[in-house]
């Protein structure tokens, strides 16, 4: 277009008010987010973007902007409050949208890339900025409303304030889910609370507050008598009811949630009474009023359905039941409120005199009866399964898109926006098409250089469980094709996305899908894209033989369920030995003390209730060497349990770690299915066993791969005293284990575990710890040493240098008693065996005790008895 024309046109353009210009800018932002939401709905899944993206583009983008802009507009207009400065409005708009963009981009990156601190930080910073901006906006409304003339419309601001508070409330569970370290049950409760606070609070309260005055305005009539009083009286019940619902859902208090939603619904019904009176006086007759009416009907229906669902299912299942209907609610209620309001308000704020008002109204109302009918009918039909439902969504999207186009045309025509040049538009279109083509071209990973497809196809069954994916690791040769047969064995929906972009649809409980990963040329990560699940440990790794890379975060390799056992770990071409080894004779840190080896007598009582909390921590395992360890109860070995023959142990296992764990007591006899099951972080289980056989028993974590869990410290001992066990002067317990240095689950450690090449052998979790802090005894005292071999790979030949054993009890049986003529020099135990030996030291001195396999003794399985004269 020649520049002359532009100049001529700008002369004919009517002067616009700065206010109008501001509002059309704000509305453009709303429209832009709405358009992005529609695009994400249409193409998001194809591009591998997360499923919650359209919802959040719409709610956080379009709706939040609209609420902030319009709550301010109505407060200013109705309360005759002082205008905010244009500068403040612009800053708020910019900050709010920067926050929204950061939050959405960060959250998308969290679920589509390998995440990391910068990504999580961006998302959380965005959430904080959004919550902060809304808090700022709400605070501004409160302060201004106090000093304004107020009068009969003061209630409007109070509703907006309550709405703003609920956005901040919704941000809390949202942020917790981004961190992801919650159990699946808690996650489901939080997401239900989050959705209720956001939809019924932030959106619902703001909309109801606005309707008191907007509804009569749309009908071009007066506000009904007594409507201020109603607004004033219904706010508190609505807000308190919703608070009870949100708290009830978050904590799993079903009846608090039900009572809350009923109170909220009653408050809504009461608040609607004056609106109905108005509508009876003046029937809806415009596009805006009919659209807003339809929205209110959807809201009422949704409240009834919501109350029914909350009262019928437990809190952690509420969201699973409601999830399919959320999009319908969003479009039916939120979308139509927005659409109706914009239909009325957009021409008003675009200004330009009565003539232009009529022209703009005509434009945004174009074909409205058809659009309204299509939208609401199609919206009902979206509940149909299969292609019919999908087609209905296309119709809904088309109807919304038609409005967006009409509204955008009105905004552009009114000239508040610089019209982009033809060159810029063409260039953008061409560049965008190229970008799309490149995304398509590069999707699916492609074949990296130097790896030829082998033509072999490997098919692996993958089970999605409660915050776990099993197997956690799949290994194959580079160039092999991989097909995953994915089944969701959990009680909530999951999916699986691989690092090369292929993804299953969202799978309902029990549903299956076949995922063709394609030719694998290098390591590949897989994870569940449901918000927060990846961070909670739903990851897996595909490794190719020869990879010398870390198996990513520990959760992925360790969290597998019981059927992970069949998978071998990939490629052990080279034995990485970067740990530098240990020096058993080195110096321990100041104040370090070994695990208490002295064994207390069995406590009284026949039932032993014990809580064992699984933690992942760090510990000094060899002189000057700190290593991350996985523990029962914070120590390696875990707490020593001792009882008499016939006692009952009732163990509560609490998983306070970041991956799945479990426990297996060799001392009990029961079906492993339930008590030995792997529990997700945050969950707990009860394990009850009857100690009806004496012995020194091992307990350990039985989550696959067990060698990793045992190799990282998850073992302990149960001592069940044989009948008539004689009293002795001193009793000690030593659990022998192995030490594998390096990042737990990292490639280097995994390799050493698989090769059974520990960095050290340890008594009670430390290499030569009792060389530093010897066990004590006095001459002529009878000393009993209980020994349990935890492995995972090696047993022991327990020997005390300079002493002989006159009593040997191994695996439930006395092999030697003091009255026997013979003696014993070593107690031999295979992995997972236990027993005790007794000796009497003849004279004062320092007696080393060792595993007489000297490879073990010289690498940590060593300590001293310091024997003194009586």
């Amino acid at each position: 277009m020649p520049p002359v024309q532009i100049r001529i046109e700008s002369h004919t353009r009517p002067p616009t008010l700065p206010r109008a210009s501001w509002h059309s800018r704000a509305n453009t932002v709303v429209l832009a987010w709405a358009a992005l939401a529609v695009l994400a709905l249409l193409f998001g899944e194809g591009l591998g973007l997360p499923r919650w993206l359209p919802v959040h583009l719409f709610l956080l983008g379009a709706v939040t902007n609209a609420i902030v802009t319009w709550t301010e507009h109505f407060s200013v207009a109705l309360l005759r409050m002082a205008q905010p400065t244009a500068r403040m409005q612009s800053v708020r708009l910019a900050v709010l949208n920067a926050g929204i963009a950061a939050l959405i981009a960060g959250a998308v990156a969290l679920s589509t890339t390998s995440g990391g601190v910068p990504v999580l930080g961006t998302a959380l910073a965005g959430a904080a900025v959004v919550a902060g901006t809304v808090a700022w906006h709400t605070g501004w409304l409160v302060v201004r409303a106090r000093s304004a003339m107020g009068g009969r419309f003061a209630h409007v601001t109070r509703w907006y304030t309550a709405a703003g508070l609920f956005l901040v409330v919704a941000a809390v569970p949202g942020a917790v889910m981004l961190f992801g370290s919650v159990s699946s049950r808690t996650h489901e409760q939080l997401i239900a609370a989050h959705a209720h606070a956001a939809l019924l609070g932030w959106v619902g309260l703001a909309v109801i507050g606005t309707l008191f005055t907007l509804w009569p305005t749309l009908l071009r009539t007066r506000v009904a008598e007594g409507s201020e009083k109603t607004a004033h009286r219904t706010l508190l019940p609505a807000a308190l009811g919703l608070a009870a619902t949100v708290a009830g859902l978050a904590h799993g208090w079903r009846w608090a949630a039900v009572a809350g939603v009923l109170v909220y619904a009653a408050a809504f019904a009461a608040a609607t009474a004056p609106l109905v009176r108005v509508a009876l006086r003046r029937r809806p007759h415009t596009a805006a009023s009919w659209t807003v009416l339809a929205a209110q009907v959807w809201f009422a229906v949704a409240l009834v359905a919501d109350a029914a669902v909350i009262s019928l299912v437990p809190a952690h299942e509420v969201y699973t039941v409601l999830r399919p209907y959320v999009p319908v609610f969003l479009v039916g209620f939120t979308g139509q409120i927005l659409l109706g309001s914009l239909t009325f308000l957009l021409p008003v704020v675009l200004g330009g005199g009565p003539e232009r008002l009529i022209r703009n109204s005509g434009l945004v109302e174009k074909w409205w009866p058809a659009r309204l009918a299509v939208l609401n009918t199609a919206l009902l039909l979206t509940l149909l399964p299969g292609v019919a439902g999908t087609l209905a969504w296309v119709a809904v999207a088309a109807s919304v898109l038609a409005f967006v186009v009409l509204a955008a045309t009105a905004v552009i025509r009114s000239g508040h926006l610089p019209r982009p040049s033809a060159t810029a538009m063409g260039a953008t279109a061409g560049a965008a098409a190229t970008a799309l083509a490149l995304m398509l071209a590069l999707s699916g990973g492609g074949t990296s250089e130097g790896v030829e497809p082998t033509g072999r196809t490997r098919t692996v069954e993958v089970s999605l469980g409660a915050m776990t994916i099993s197997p956690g690791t799949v290994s194959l040769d580079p160039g092999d094709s991989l097909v995953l047969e994915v089944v969701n064995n959990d009680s909530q929906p999951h999916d699986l996305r691989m690092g090369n972009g292929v993804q299953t649809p969202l799978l309902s409980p029990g549903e299956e899908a076949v995922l063709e990963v394609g030719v694998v040329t290098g390591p590949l990560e897989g994870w569940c894209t449901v918000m927060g699940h990846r961070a909670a440990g739903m990851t897996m790794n595909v490794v190719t033989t020869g990879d010398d890379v870390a198996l990513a975060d520990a959760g992925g390799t360790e969290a597998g369920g019981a059927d992970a056992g069949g998978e071998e770990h990939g490629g052990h071409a080279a034995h990485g030995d970067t740990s530098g080894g240990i020096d058993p004779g080195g110096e321990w840190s100041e104040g370090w003390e070994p695990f208490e080896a002295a064994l207390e007598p069995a406590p009284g009582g026949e039932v032993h209730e014990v809580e064992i909390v699984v933690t992942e921590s760090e510990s000094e395992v060899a002189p000057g060497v700190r290593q991350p360890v996985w523990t029962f109860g914070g120590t390696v070995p875990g707490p020593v349990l001792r009882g008499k023959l016939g006692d009952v142990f009732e163990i509560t296992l609490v998983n306070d770690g970041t991956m799945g764990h479990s426990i297996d007591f060799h001392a009990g006899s029961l079906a492993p299915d339930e008590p030995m099951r792997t529990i997700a972080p945050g969950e707990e289980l009860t394990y009850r066993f009857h100690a009806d056989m004496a012995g020194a028993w091992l307990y350990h974590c039985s989550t696959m791969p067990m060698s990793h869990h045992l190799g990282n410290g998850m073992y302990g001992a149960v001592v069940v005293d044989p009948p008539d066990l004689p009293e002795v002067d001193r009793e000690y317990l030593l659990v022998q284990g192995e030490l594998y240095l390096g990042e737990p689950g990292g490639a280097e450690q995994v390799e050493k575990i698989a090769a059974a090449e520990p960095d050290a052998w340890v008594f009670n979790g430390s290499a030569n710890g009792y060389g530093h802090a010897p066990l004590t005894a006095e001459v002529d005292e009878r000393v009993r040493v209980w020994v349990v071999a935890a492995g995972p790979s090696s047993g022991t030949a327990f020997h005390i240098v300079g002493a002989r054993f006159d009593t040997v009890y191994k695996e439930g049986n006395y092999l030697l008693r003091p009255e026997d003529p013979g003696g014993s020099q070593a107690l031999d135990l295979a992995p997972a065996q236990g027993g005790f030996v007794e000796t009497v030291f003849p004279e004062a001195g320092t007696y080393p005790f060792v595993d007489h396999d000297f490879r073990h003794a010289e690498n940590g399985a060593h300590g001293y008895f310091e024997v003194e004269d009586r």
Partner: protein
Amino acid sequence: MITAWTVVRFLHIIGAMLWVGGQLAVSLVVRPLAARSLDDKNRATMLTAVGKRFGVLTMAVFLPIQLITGTLLAWGAGVTWESLAEPGYGRILVAKLLLFCLVMAAASSHGIASSKGHPTLARVLALTSVFASVGVVLVAVVLGGA
């Protein structure tokens, strides 16, 4: 060594060069010069003539050459219908073809919009075509490395 494939590949590349280069030359050289040195009427006449001639050359020469040599090259590279869906070479080729179709659609629409007197729309479409054509070359480079 020069084989028949060398000739096919040469024709495919030279065709693309002339088509993309021709568009760039019209946009960057002919059009600004015409705007500067010709009056409105002559400029319109000349640009229409340039567009028509370029259109005819496209339909008569470039497009047949690209389609024939492109099909041959794909056949020679062992591309099958099934392999088009697979990540890697097949999928990149599909992306390139789709983008090429878009370029052809934009270019044809540009001709129609020009002759029906929608200069702004015609300009948007012309620029879309130019940029997307460069995009086709970009995807082609990616394809060469796959």
